[in-house]
């Protein structure tokens, strides 16, 4: 197998220099997700302001793929609208489930397209999705708190 395809520079860069890491206040929704096969964990918070994701903050332990994925998630959704964030979530999930067939749209997914290679490795797809599952869950919780129901 081609390791470079999996461990792209961009992934290793996000792994070594994670963006937006650390838990911050304020937040309306928080989610804790665990990957039971490897014990990786993430706690992720979402701060929603109106229709905007005003902050995504997180603390995690895990492999390069799961940590880089959380960092890329931060870059993509922080400051975007809730609707755009949900669109990115759907797009990234689809890319991860593409079994190596998808390429991802660089216009919308930006650095996240580097994860296209991960979709060939079923054992690692869960790593890449861990942070995104936490984001989805935290957003649901945030919206439950603020009364918005259309997410």
């Amino acid at each position, binding site marked *: 197998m081609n*390791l470079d395809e999996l461990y792209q520079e961009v992934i*290793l860069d996000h792994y070594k220099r994670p963006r937006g890491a650390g838990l911050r206040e304020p937040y309306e929704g928080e989610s804790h997700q665990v990957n039971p096969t490897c*014990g*990786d964990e993430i706690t992720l918070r979402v701060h929603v302001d109106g229709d905007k994701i005003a902050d995504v903050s997180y603390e995690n332990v895990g492999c390069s793929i799961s940590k880089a994925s959380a960092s890329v998630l931060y870059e993509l959704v922080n400051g975007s609208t809730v609707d755009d964030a949900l669109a990115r979530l759907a797009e990234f999930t689809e890319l991860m489930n593409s079994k190596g067939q998808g390429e991802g749209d660089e216009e919308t997914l930006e650095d996240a397209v580097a994860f296209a290679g991960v979709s060939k490795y079923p054992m690692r797809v869960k790593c890449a999705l861990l942070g995104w599952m936490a984001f989805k869950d935290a957003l649901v919780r945030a919206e439950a708190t603020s009364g918005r129901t259309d997410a």
Partner: protein
Amino acid sequence: MEAVTKLDVEAVRADFPILKRMIGDRPVAYLDSAATSQKPVQVVEAMRRFTEHSNANISRSVHTLGAEATEAYEGARARVAAFIGAPSADEVVFTKNSTEAINLLAYAFQNAALDPHADPRLRLAPGDEIVVTEMEHHANLIPWQQLARRTGAVLKWIGITDHGRLDLESVPEVITERTKLVSFTHVANLLGTVNPTSQITARAREVGALVGLDASQSVPHIPVNVAELGVDFIAFTGHKMLGPTGIGVLWAKADLLDAMPPFLTGGSMIKTVTMEQTTFAEAPAKFEAGTPPIAEAVGLAAAVDYLDSLGMENVRAHEKELAGYMLERLETVDGLTVIGPRVPIGRSATVSFTLEGVHPHDVGQVLDAEAVAVRVGHHCAKPTCDRFGVNATTRASAYVYNTHEEIDRLVEALGRVRKVFS
């Protein structure tokens, strides 16, 4: 001094076609036998021959095939009994795996707790104690933890020292007059520690507790004789000892099996049945409800024959040699920390380690790219991971077919891991 090993590894390897399997442009270096071992052609062939020639259900048909199948299945039981030094084949119960074997026992206790006429050794009352260790595989922890929760019994455990050994000094305090059962791992699946058993079994006897072993990682690798060990039960599994998946073993003393209520009920485990009630067959049939894994039993017997032909003392010597070499070579890798005993004394050829700054998942991925197969994760031993303050480890485990060269490949590949993540 060079250890003398009588194992002809090249001849052994020739019996395992999978070792020729190419991953990329190299043959796989399979260092994951603690998870599951590979199977020699003799095992595969015995199962194929049985299936093509004698397949039938056991103990119910009078036809020729039925008789042959019954003979093969019961012959496998006798073969396994002899391999572990059991006084009688009737003390060997076939299960699905070690996990089921331990659950069979745990549910015997739970069922006994509901029956005022049950054997007092099995009757747990609130405040009674069940003792395990901190280095258990989840299979020998969760069944007891849940049993304790349901019966009001207290789960206690013997801790682990910084060197990865059992804290035997605590044994007299942990095992008390309230202790009714002690179940501990013979060889730890994450740490590779081979536990000395005599002190714990002696203390259990002193307080009148039943005592047994999770022998999943010992029966495949070292000579195990249940009479010499002086325990009441052991559990192990076929697929870690060159046999097939789908078959495991609970060995227990005849008088204990007699006293135990069945776990699963249904076909093949009865004496008489009416619409109102049932009387049960004697052990082992009492614990083997439903059609058992017949071809798998045949395969397990072939695996036992294979191990006996190598000689378990030779297997032990070979692995001791590999354990020493693996520890010595791994110590040369920058940033590598062995989790578990660092000397090849009282330990198996299963070595867990961490690599500074690199998650085990990433280690395993790069090793796979070098066709080196290891296990990464918590190895179903979360409390052991917690004890050593790690989330996960990389674990290399050797068996009869592994070579020094494969360990060299592991060490080289770890060099590549360091490069990718530097």
